[in-house]
């Protein structure tokens, strides 16, 4: 029996510690999970929110990542307060959840830096990605020669969903011969090491790549904010039913508060 005493003591200590942590129980906790693209924005907003005088010491955040679909599943099962999604609602999404739009994000077409294409129209992008045009010699302004290597994201990616909606439309599909990568990083690395590659990426993942202007408009934050750049997608906080309590206040804060708007504008596109 004696041997078990240290163990029991440790358990008691752990319980006490967890109680101590939970002691300011009046603090409401907002748990969030989901899109890795939305998470950096969420972190900034959460920091600003808990520093607001009326919420100071009363609200806590736990922010986990994992991908848009993980956030949507988590919130629909009630595992988190809010899910983060970088893709629009889909028919097969679980019922009873509400997508609350909080910001927008620019999706850019990118090529290897040795292949600085001046501009691409929507038709050209559709031709290239659907496989109708398969050689760089058929693309005006391309430095590269030889076949075009499409580097895209897997079906479950929020960025792939956004690219499909913005650039390809309802009927066209990305050619089946395309290389599909599981993450932003792998995709960017592949495009960096292949002079013939073309792909797409969220604005924040375009470092080291050539960003192709779309319809003559460079893919920059300024152009996306002004509405000139057409390739933008939505960032959502997803709630189970209509958002209630502190979660609702947080969503309103993200949408309307001047401080929050300034934060969004630092790397993303605020809602107009």
């Amino acid at each position: 029996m004696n041997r078990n005493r240290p163990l029991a003591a440790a358990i008691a200590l752990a319980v006490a510690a967890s109680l101590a942590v939970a002691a300011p129980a009046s603090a409401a906790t907002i748990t969030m999970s989901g899109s890795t693209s939305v998470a950096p924005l969420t972190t900034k907003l959460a920091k600003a929110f808990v520093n607001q005088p009326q919420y100071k010491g009363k609200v806590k955040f736990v922010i986990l990542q994992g991908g848009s679909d993980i956030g949507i599943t988590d919130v629909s099962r009630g595992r988190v307060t809010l899910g983060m999604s970088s893709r629009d609602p889909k028919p097969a999404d679980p019922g009873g959840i509400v997508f609350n739009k909080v910001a927008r994000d620019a999706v850019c077409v990118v090529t290897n830096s040795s292949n600085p294409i001046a501009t691409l129209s929507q038709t050209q992008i559709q031709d290239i990605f659907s496989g109708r045009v398969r050689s760089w010699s058929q693309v005006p302004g391309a430095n590269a020669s030889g076949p075009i290597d499409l580097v895209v994201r897997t079906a479950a990616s929020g960025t792939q969903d956004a690219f499909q909606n913005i650039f390809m439309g309802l009927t066209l599909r990305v050619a089946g011969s395309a290389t599909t990568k599981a993450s932003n990083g792998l995709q960017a690395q592949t495009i960096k090491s292949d002079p013939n590659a073309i792909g797409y990426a969220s604005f924040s993942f375009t470092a080291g790549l050539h960003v192709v202007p779309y319809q003559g408009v460079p893919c920059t934050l300024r152009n996306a904010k002004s509405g000139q750049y057409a390739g933008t997608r939505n960032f959502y906080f997803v709630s189970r039913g209509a958002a209630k309590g502190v979660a609702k206040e947080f969503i309103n804060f993200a949408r309307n508060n001047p401080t929050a708007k300034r934060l969004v504008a630092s790397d993303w596109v605020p809602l107009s």
Partner: protein
Amino acid sequence: MEAGGIAARATGGFWSDAKVERILGAVACIVLALIVGMIIFVFQKAWPSFAHNGLAWFGSGGDLDLQLEDIFASPANPADYVYTLRAWPLLWGTFAVTAGAVLIGAVFSLLAAIFIVEFAPARVNRVLEPVVRLLAAVPSVVYGLIGILVIVPWVGEHLISLEREESVANVVQLSGACLGVGVVILTVMIVPIMIAIVVDALRAVPRSWTEGAAALGVNRWRVMWTISVHTARPAVVAAAVLSTARALGEAIMLSMVAGSASFAPNPIDGLTFLFEPTRPLASALVENVEGLSVVPFGETLFAFAAVLLVSSMFLSLAGFAAKQSMRKYGVRP
């Protein structure tokens, strides 16, 4: 007093033999129940995908990446879920990569093991054996990183000519990430394990057998080949089986260097075959895990998992059989 203490420990006290036996038995049963539960769970989840496609699931047809997209974009109504899938490119990719790596690895590690056991001077062995053990412990993602940062761009630039690329441009992209690179890196990954197993087996061959042959005037290579290697044949098989299991489950590294396109490389294309991209089952699983929440997509992923589970089950059985026959030769695995 000493003796009394030992007697007490043997018969009674908290950790009596009977009690320990029951506790350990319970732990063993939990492990067994876990495995059975896991198999049932995976197959139950995977069933709709198999049921909707029938045997065609294992066939070829259409473009797998587009089929996965359709499954992912299924409508909300369970009656309208899309399940159509022809998984042949994944199955063929898994087989091609694994078989290639294990065959090359078996030959290479057998020769290396013979060198280590019979020919290498002790000084060389003191370096060689720790290095082999170290190689076996390198995590696969490290190989993947080296592959995607160094080997894949090099292959794409120097080994794949523009003509070769254009000859298949309408079907598939050759960008350097390919079956060949996957096989080569996978071989490097599994060879250390194989060498270790084969070396142990060769060392376990009774010295009297080899010395008897040497006394008859046979040279060292012939002794190794005709006596040691023949005796250790089951060990070579066991090494192949164990490394096949590792190769089969390898996901991250292959997803980084093998091309990430659901394409079945075609041996008729000659040398181009080696430069064509492919995607094994395990890679397809990790690459798509983000979409697990979409019900039919999740069930399709579980179907991939079920196929992997069955294959590795057969492999364990084969490994067990190989070990049994090894025991017959008095060789410890």
